[in-house]
């Protein structure tokens, strides 16, 4: 069932992501994912944990619609990705998915405000509104006083906060953070994780992809991946709540 609702997908109760028996095989017999199923509800904070080569990056690409499965189905905020062409997937990414990368991927010569505003570029919002919302997003991540700083004028932790602001500026239904602390020192990494938890507490659905078991251990739900399959799916303290309480 593919929903024809185009505007209000984020507003109703559809899960942020649903994977059913997903396979991603590459030519030459490499099975990056082999029968993966799980469901991520609205407002969850989930860690997808696994060593390199476990298939977690493939999982990230499928959740972000940067790649398509060779079998099974992937639904993002209610939309079956098999029913989307490249334009449709792009449009859904623009509206419903925010990415945070290990290497930040910020434009060098561009002020923080405009880096964040670019998170809305492909939604069709006019520049004035993009900048207004970017200002709000930077204030949410605690960089309200760094609007006009360029990335090289910011610390690594601050850069990652800018990237997070860019990911959440459009209030997407799903935030995907790929090793968000991988390029940061411990203190900055901790701060970034706290920020993600705060955003989650405020309602954002956040998926953190990491190889770091310790980092994932602090998350309310952990999906362990190994050899292209889900090894375990566990919730902290059995409470299954939306966020961690310390």
């Amino acid at each position: 069932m593919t929903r024809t609702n185009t505007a209000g997908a984020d507003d109703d109760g559809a899960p942020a992501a649903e994977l059913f028996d997903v396979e991603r095989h590459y030519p030459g017999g490499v099975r990056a994912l082999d029968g993966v199923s799980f469901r991520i509800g609205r407002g969850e904070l989930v860690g997808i944990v696994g060593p390199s080569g476990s298939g977690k990056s493939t999982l990230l690409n499928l959740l972000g619609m940067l790649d398509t499965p060779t079998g099974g189905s992937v639904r993002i905020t209610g939309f079956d990705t098999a029913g989307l062409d490249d334009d449709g997937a792009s449009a859904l990414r623009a509206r419903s998915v925010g990415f945070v990368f290990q290497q930040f991927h910020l434009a060098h010569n561009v002020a923080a405000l405009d880096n964040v505003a670019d998170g809305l570029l492909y939604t069709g919002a006019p520049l004035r509104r993009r900048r207004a919302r970017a200002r709000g997003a930077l204030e949410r991540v605690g960089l309200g006083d760094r609007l006009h700083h360029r990335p090289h004028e910011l610390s690594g932790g601050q850069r990652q906060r800018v990237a997070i602001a860019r990911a959440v500026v459009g209030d997407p239904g799903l935030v995907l953070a790929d090793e968000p602390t991988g390029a940061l020192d411990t203190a900055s990494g901790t701060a970034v994780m706290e920020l993600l938890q705060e955003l989650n507490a405020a309602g954002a659905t956040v998926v953190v992809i990491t190889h770091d078991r310790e980092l994932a251990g602090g998350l309310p739900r952990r999906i362990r991946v190994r050899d292209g399959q889900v090894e375990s799916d566990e919730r902290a303290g059995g409470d299954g709540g939306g966020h961690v309480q310390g």
Partner: protein
Amino acid sequence: MSRGSGRGPRPARLSPADLVRTGASGLRARPLRVVLSALGIAIGVAAMVAVVGISASSRADLDARLASLGTNLVTAAPGESLLGEAATLPKGAEDRVRRLPGVRGVAQVGQVEGASVYRSDRIPEEASGGITVYGASLDLPETLRAHVRTGEWLNRATSGYPAVVLGATAAERLGIARIGPGTRVLIGEEYFSVVGILDPVALAPEMDSAALVGRDAAAGRLGADGHPTRVYVRAAPERVAEVREVLARAADPEEPFGVEVSRPSDALEAKEAADRAFSGLLLGLGGVALLVGGVGVANTMVISVLERRGEIGLRRALGATRRQIRGQFLVEAMALSALGGVAGAVLGALVTAGYAVTRGWMVAIPVWAPTAGVLATLGIGAVAGLLPAVRAARTAPTEALGSG
């Protein structure tokens, strides 16, 4: 690609301003490379604008000169008779021509054979300086629109006296820049007072190296035979062709084929046409420079796409469609090329202005030249950017982000 189209969300369109902004963002990040790769385009456009501008300025100058000199001057000179002998014009030619309809003014000169001009009798005879002596009618300056630079033209009184007016080059060769009461030159056996010096005469350059004496003096003192060697006719502008037609017969009714009729302004036009052929060649060279510049832009864009895979991946992750990525790189290539075009148009205009000023011309750059130049560079940018833009759009976002 086709499955499910029409269902699900549709991408938003980028506004033109956003399209230009994304295209320009890549250029702003690498200013030095922009300058270097736009340079070829700039040189090409500058060459073309300068060629067109210089040629137009020269044309405008010629038009202005022709307008003041008039294209209605026609001359009759002896050519060859039907038998191939040197012809002469009969003595009454000037009066007959004057009676033609459409003739506004006539003057004649008759060359004094064998007369040479010297500064003094100490100068050896062979150093005659190539100055030709003419007996001239009194309305010669008026007919030729010749200007007496210093002194005055001959009049009825001085026409029979040993008085002479020198052409600009003749005066220079004789070393006479100013004239006083005692300024004289030796013509034949007799000293002639120099009463005036002419400015160069554009339509009758033969006057520049001439020493002009009155017709009476030429006949009485220098032994001229009285035959005109050239008759200058100023026709009514709308009747030039008509006058030209009948001039030979009027000048010499018995042997009209021995009369050579010409219009001096044609020679200036012909020189201009020769210059145009030369500018065609330069224009071609400018085109080659433009082509090479286009290849430079294409090369820069190919490298840029390879270097910016991360940016492409990020933009795809932010929701850019393939078409939007393609548009961004296409606009970037066009902006890069047009930047060179604008710089080239300005440079070409400056070169034109500089050249025109040194030549004493007015600056005339036709608006279409820089406009066409900049438009052409937009086209070149689009062609040069097409392949790199398509490659950028085809880059898989997973590869571009370095994950997979």
